[in-house]
């Protein structure tokens, strides 16, 4: 064959170009060189450094990678007691210094978004130091002062309602310091199933560049992306966690299931003890425990706490679950699917399967549209179209073709969906406008998302489907609540159908309409202020405060065209020691909702959050818990080394999709976590040669060779 090797690349190119263009076209948001504000400078400097192009894309600003195991090792123990419908959780973090230096360690971890942290204890040797609540900046100062003077100190700060960080200073060589925090959270309930979710890892977050407008914004973005992700080549068993759950819900437990971990169960049916089958598990995916009542479904849960400051009550009221006879109005549904890099691996498959499952349930009288986004966005149809088999088929093929890559610019996709839902369905009030949003929610601009939903004014119902082993439940829960929908979590490829079916049932039935709550024979300060939309089988959970608990609570509304009402005698409440803190947490959620809706300015919202936090002693965005040992331990001359403890990549995530092939080489440069502050933005330039001349040239050469051969053969035959 007269084919020179030089012609080989064009041969492959035809197939490679789409792939390479796809890979390189991903806009890559790596910030480089703080000082280089001018493009040319940054370009020339960078050209010198790295070599060898790679298809990998690093799309997370500031999120570093740990190439080695940390000096300070962390072990976590969670001890959960469920009483009635409230879980009290003690989280003990053991920081063990394996090095010969004095260390400061900081660990970023998740807690349930509706959990209220109210206790911090630091254990040093035989001594227990109790933490106290302080305004955020003051707590930070207390901690820094103790750190500088060589005393041991522990600090617990809230970065997001579901994301906290613990810092410990002055852990001596070979020493172990225990940090123990406690929080309470209500147990979730849907269709008679109770579920307890213990998040174990914070998924790496994407920070949209446009949000980095001020020093404070940069600091915030750095805080939520502070934890480096352990390179998966070093294993995935970091931060071992042990879990024990004491389950005393007040009824006989049936159908006790752990979704993602193997468990052992012992004890009586109304007082179960659950522990992990393996003593510890790596902190890389959420722990979810579900149970039902062995007898008829308890439709009402009423708990109260009497304190010197007043009485607190929590009531959960569940509307009837059977709505079969009701009409199913036509709907306009906009599906939004996240195909950003953080979805790489199992998550993308789960999201696609969920979307395809949902598309399959559309009826011809429904209208629908599909929007996909990473840092770009595609709207399948210009406006919603009728769900004919052809269009549904087209959408299904579109869903199948999606691949995870790029950053997570969620805001434009949400706005586009809200706008579409606003225009496509006409003005018919009977058409339900619904947005089904499939994502892992790994972004840092949660507030912008909520503001966008708030600005929509409730025209569309937003249903969040959280995908993957550790989705951002704070974003999901609040977007669903503000958007008048519900939040569903699909955590494993096998449970797509099981989780999507109840959601689609909810979607096909209207919520309880004209919901109202009133109290007779007493007064009650109730949260949430803005009643959420309530769906069949899902309880409305009210938390209230009163000087003296008495009277009846009545919840009423309309299901279909029939009136529906439920009365609760407040005096019959069961005692529970956690309601006061839950009430404070609810008040903060109300303040944050007002902030998202633009009814409260930032300063006033912050002040209000700080006041509630200080009064009730819980950790909030404005208040932190700090514990300081009075005895100095670090000798005056010894240096203190600071370490951000690395986290596992959440189970099912794809390391290479997220960080790229050559990410590890960049780690030393990028690991500091303050890259978000940079001024110039590097852009990878796509491969821009079709190489068609190469193809034509190769073709000509082949043709020539063939014809020469032909001529030779024929001439010889003629001779």
């Amino acid at each position, binding site marked *: 064959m007269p084919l020179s090797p*030089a*012609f080989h*690349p*064009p041969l492959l190119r035809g197939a490679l170009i*789409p792939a*390479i*263009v*796809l*890979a390189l*076209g991903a*806009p890559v948001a790596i910030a*480089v*060189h703080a000082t*280089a*504000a001018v*493009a*040319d400078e940054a*370009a020339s*400097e*960078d*050209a*010198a*450094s790295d*070599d060898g*192009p790679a298809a990998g894309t690093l799309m997370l600003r500031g999120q570093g990678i740990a190439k080695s195991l940390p000096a300070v090792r962390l072990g976590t123990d969670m001890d959960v007691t469920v009483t009635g419908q409230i879980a009290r959780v003690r989280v003990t973090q053991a920081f063990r210094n394996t090095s010969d230096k004095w260390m400061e360690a900081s660990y970023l971890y998740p807690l349930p978004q509706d959990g209220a942290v109210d206790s911090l204890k630091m254990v040093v040797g035989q001594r227990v130091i109790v933490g106290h609540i302080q305004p955020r900046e003051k707590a930070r100062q207390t901690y820094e002062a103790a750190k500088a003077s060589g005393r041991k100190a522990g600090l617990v700060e809230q970065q997001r309602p579901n994301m906290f960080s613990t810092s410990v200073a002055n852990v001596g060589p070979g020493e172990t310091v225990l940090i123990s925090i406690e929080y309470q959270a209500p147990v979730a309930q849907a269709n008679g199933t109770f579920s307890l979710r213990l998040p174990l890892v914070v998924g790496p977050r994407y920070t949209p*560049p446009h949000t980095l407008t001020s020093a404070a914004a940069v600091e915030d973005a750095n805080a939520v992306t502070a934890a480096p992700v352990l390179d998966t080549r070093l294993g995935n068993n970091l931060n071992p966690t042990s879990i024990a759950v004491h389950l005393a819900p007040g009824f006989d437990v049936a159908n006790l299931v752990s979704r993602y971990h193997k468990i052992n169960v012992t004890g009586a049916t109304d007082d179960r003890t659950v522990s992990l089958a393996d003593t510890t598990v790596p902190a890389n995916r959420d722990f979810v425990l579900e149970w039902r009542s062995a007898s008829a479904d308890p439709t009402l849960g009423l708990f109260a706490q009497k304190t010197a400051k007043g009485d607190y009550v929590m009531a959960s009221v569940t509307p009837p679950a059977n709505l079969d006879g009701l009409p199913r109005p036509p709907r306009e549904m906009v599906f939004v699917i996240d195909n950003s890099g953080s979805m790489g691996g199992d998550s993308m498959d789960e999201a696609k399967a969920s979307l395809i499952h949902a598309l399959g349930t559309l009826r011809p009288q429904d209208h629908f549209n599909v929007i996909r986004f990473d*840092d*770009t966005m*595609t709207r399948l149809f*210009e406006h919603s179209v009728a769900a004919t088999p052809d269009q549904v088929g087209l959408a299904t093929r579109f869903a199948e073709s999606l691949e995870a890559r790029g950053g997570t610019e969620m805001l434009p996709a949400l706005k586009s969906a809200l706008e579409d839902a606003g225009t496509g369905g006409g003005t018919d009030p009977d058409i339900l406008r619904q947005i089904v949003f499939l994502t892992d929610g790994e972004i840092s601009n949660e507030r912008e998302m909520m503001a966008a939903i708030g600005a929509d004014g409730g025209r569309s119902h937003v249903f969040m489907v959280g995908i993957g082993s550790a989705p951002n439940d704070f974003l999901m829960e609040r977007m669903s609540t503000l958007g008048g929908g519900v939040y569903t979590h699909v955590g494993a490829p096998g449970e797509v159908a099981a989780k999507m079916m109840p959601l689609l049932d909810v979607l096909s039935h209207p919520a309880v309409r004209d919901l109202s709550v009133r109290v007779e024979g007493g007064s009650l300060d109730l949260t949430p202020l803005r009643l959420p939309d309530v769906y069949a089988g899902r309880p409305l959970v009210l938390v209230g405060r009163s000087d003296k608990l008495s009277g009846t609570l009545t919840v009423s509304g309309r299901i279909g065209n029939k009136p529906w009402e439920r009365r609760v005698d407040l005096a019959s409440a069961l005692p529970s020691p956690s309601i006061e803190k839950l009430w404070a947490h609810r008040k903060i959620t109300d303040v944050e909702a007002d902030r998202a809706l633009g009814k409260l300015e930032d300063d006033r919202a912050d002040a209000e959050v700080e006041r509630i936090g200080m009064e009730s002693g819980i950790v909030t965005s404005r208040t932190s818990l700090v514990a300081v040992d009075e005895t100095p331990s670090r000798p005056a001359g010894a240096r203190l080394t600071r370490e951000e403890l690395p986290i596992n990549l959440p189970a099912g995530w794809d390391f290479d999709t997220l960080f790229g092939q050559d990410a590890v080489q960049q780690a030393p440069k990028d690991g500091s976590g303050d890259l978000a502050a940079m*001024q*110039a*933005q*590097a*852009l*990878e*330039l*796509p*491969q*821009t*040669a*079709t*190489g*068609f*001349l*190469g*193809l*034509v*040239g*190769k*073709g000509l050469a*082949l*043709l020539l*060779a*063939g*014809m020469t*051969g*032909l001529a030779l*053969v024929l001439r*010889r035959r003629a001779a």
Partner: protein
Amino acid sequence: MNAAALRMPLRIREVAHKRGLLVLLALAVCLSGAVEIGRGLYIPAKAAVAQVLLERAFDRSRIDHAPRKPWPWADMTPLARLVVPGLGTSSVVLDSGSGQALAFGPTLLPGGARLGQSGTAVIAAHRDTHFRFLRDLKKGDLLFLQTREGVERRYRVTGMEVVRWDGYAVADAPVGERLDLVTCFPFDAIRRGPWRYVVHAEAVTR
């Protein structure tokens, strides 16, 4: 053929058989050459035809200022028209739905600024189709851009530069309206390389 072959002496039949194979082989090589040429020529043909469809979609977009798909299954829409009066070229720029959009026209890279806003907008296209004309641009040349929203801009070329694909950055801070046109370098290379040719331009008031 078979009947004729049977009547031939054995030796001649063997030779003819061998030659027949050679002829077939040569024909196969010719055929694959023709296929390669076809595949090669398909690329600029597709690029040219797409531009015609994009022109139409863009004209419709200009009427209602809304994105219009050039064909129903497209995952991108025309965003702007880039005209170089000095060279007589005009091409429709795409918002980048996906990387495959580059086959059909120049694409606005999502990492850069938006057209008509402060910052540096970056448009990339293939060096051997839509952006072949970049090699002919000179400092001081005028570019003309109109977006579907009706924004019109005039840019003046301020310089050219060759950079590595991964060694390019635009300033985040607003520094006036700039436009960078990017393609592969060198223009006549057969192989893919790490180098990119960047034409810098700056908006000028008319």
